[in-house]
């Protein structure tokens, strides 16, 4: 019999960074599993998006994708309202939409959201940090891009906990450029010899290692942050960075494809799912490194 062709598209807000590799792999693995399991369908998964963070451009791309006529959209929605209209247009055109990784909130007509709650993940980081440095002292918090919704949410989660302690924090805008990021932390640590920790709410965490090593502050300053970037994992293994928060993006790709399949096959309504906040530290680093190698983490 003729197989039913289902084209799904993953749209991310900065399609060219490798963060999405596990997410897309999760989606493709799910498609492969279904294709093997169900002889009646043939699912394809394609990944697209603006090359760098740009909400307006992402909306344009979503509109173009709707125009091209696909059978399901899995999209990050790093803006509370911008995606309302295009998602509605997709639904009107009979294309189901699931939000992944970054959510626009329940007012958006998307059918479901799969991903980490940025705010609670921020709280998780802060709680773990307090476990290491106590409830007082000075720290710096780096954020790549002021105004980026997810990052601001994570920051809010971190501050929510820190504001209940005596910890004195300074916020640094590190930009996505590691040189500037490293300079900012370096300058901060030179200016604040008594600082206890530096943290980042994004992949700029990888810059911590160099700074701590160059200033000879190994063991004196705690480093923590987000995402499983190779350099960050190396830093954890080398004892320069204490821990990093993993969003487990594999799940954020895998589950939406499953949900879209079930929607097309049995009209089962997709449901929300929390992809959790995995903490990676010296205890589980070996295992994570191995999985990251394979593209699952």
């Amino acid at each position, binding site marked *: 019999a003729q197989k039913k062709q289902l084209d799904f598209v993953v749209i991310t807000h900065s399609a060219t960074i490798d963060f999405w590799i596990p997410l897309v792999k999760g989606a493709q693995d799910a498609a492969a599993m279904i294709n093997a399991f169900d002889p009646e369908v043939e699912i394809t998964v394609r990944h*697209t*998006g603006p090359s760098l963070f740009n909400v307006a451009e992402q909306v*344009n791309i979503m509109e*173009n994708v709707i125009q091209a006529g696909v059978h399901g959209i899995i999209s990050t929605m790093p*803006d509370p*309202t911008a995606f309302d209209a295009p998602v509605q247009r997709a639904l009107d055109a009979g294309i189901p939409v699931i939000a992944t990784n970054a959510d626009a909130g329940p007012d958006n007509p998307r059918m479901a959201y799969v991903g980490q709650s940025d705010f609670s993940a921020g709280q998780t980081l802060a709680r773990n940090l307090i476990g290491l440095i106590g409830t007082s002292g000075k720290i710096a918090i780096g954020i790549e891009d002021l105004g980026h919704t997810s990052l601001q949410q994570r920051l809010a989660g971190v501050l929510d906990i820190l504001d209940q302690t005596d910890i004195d924090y300074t916020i640094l805008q590190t930009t996505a450029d590691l040189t500037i990021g490293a300079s900012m932390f370096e300058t901060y640590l030179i200016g604040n010899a008594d600082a206890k920790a530096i943290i980042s709410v994004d992949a700029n965490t990888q810059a911590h290692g160099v700074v701590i090593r160059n200033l000879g502050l190994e063991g004196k300053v705690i480093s923590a942050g987000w995402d499983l970037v190779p350099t960050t994992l190396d830093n954890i293994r080398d004892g320069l960075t204490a821990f990093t928060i993993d969003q487990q993006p594999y799940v954020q790709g895998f589950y939406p494809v499953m949900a879209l399949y079930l929607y097309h096959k049995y009209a089962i309504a997709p449901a929300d799912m929390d992809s959790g906040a995995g903490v990676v530290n010296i205890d589980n680093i070996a295992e994570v490194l191995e999985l990251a190698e394979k593209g699952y983490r």
Partner: protein
Amino acid sequence: MHLLNTLRSRREIGVLAALVVLCIFFTVVTNTFLTVPNILNILRQVSITGLIVMFMTMLVIGNDIDLSVGSNFATVGMIVALLFQNGTNIWLASLIGLIVGGLLGLANGLITVKAALPPFIVTLGTQMIYRGLALVISGGAPASVRLPAAFYNITGARTFWNLPVPALWFIGITILAAFLLHKTSYGFKVYATGGNEEAARLSGINTSRVRIINFVLVGMSAALAGIIQMAYLRGVTPTAGQGMELMAIASTVIGGTSMFGGVGTIGGAFIGAIFMGVVRNGLVLMGTNAYLIDLIIGAVLISAVWFSTFSTRERR
């Protein structure tokens, strides 16, 4: 009429031909490119930057440049959204937004002209300042708005047989700009100022005023774009519009405007604005790898500018 008139010049013919070739290519390789909804889609997508391109073109013809439009765009969108959230009437808020946009442009113009500094550097500085403003007033958080229908309908909606309103604004502003640049003495003064500021001044043209007005106009167009974008997306992020200035300048130059001032048309600018939108749209429709899209756009940009200047290049 104006458009037709200005199209006669050879510069636009080159890039118009390139645009046609591009459209034929996309029509052949995708089966969705040449459909009414997609054409409307492209028009809508280019309209936000396109609004700015018109006055950027006028500014560049006057031999200036503005790198701060993207920040201006975000700041104004943010101001209007926050005023509205705090209970200001949306029409009043928009008016204030337009005025603020004009004032930010005025600041660019005054510093550039009165302190005789290169506009590239001045507006690079104000790009950072205005972006900082957007961040400070918003605290870094995006703002969402639920606009009254009357306002939404004339800014962000799709009306009249699904025609996107932003595209109508774009076309309206294009006609307005074409009139101003090609049919009034103000437009003539812009060409004179950009062609040889010294000569224009010696013959009694107040070139400082022309240049400052140009900056105000481009500032107001960025503000208008910011307001329409805010309405269309029903909200605004303080990081909106980054890199927009470069795309606006690129469209301007693709449209045949000389970066050395004195030469260019609104008709060309219109084609230039559409051109960039068509490329982006077509590439996504083709399912091009995201890693390659910017690379291809960069190459197309250079080729398009080459095309648009080819016909007028001096032969020897």
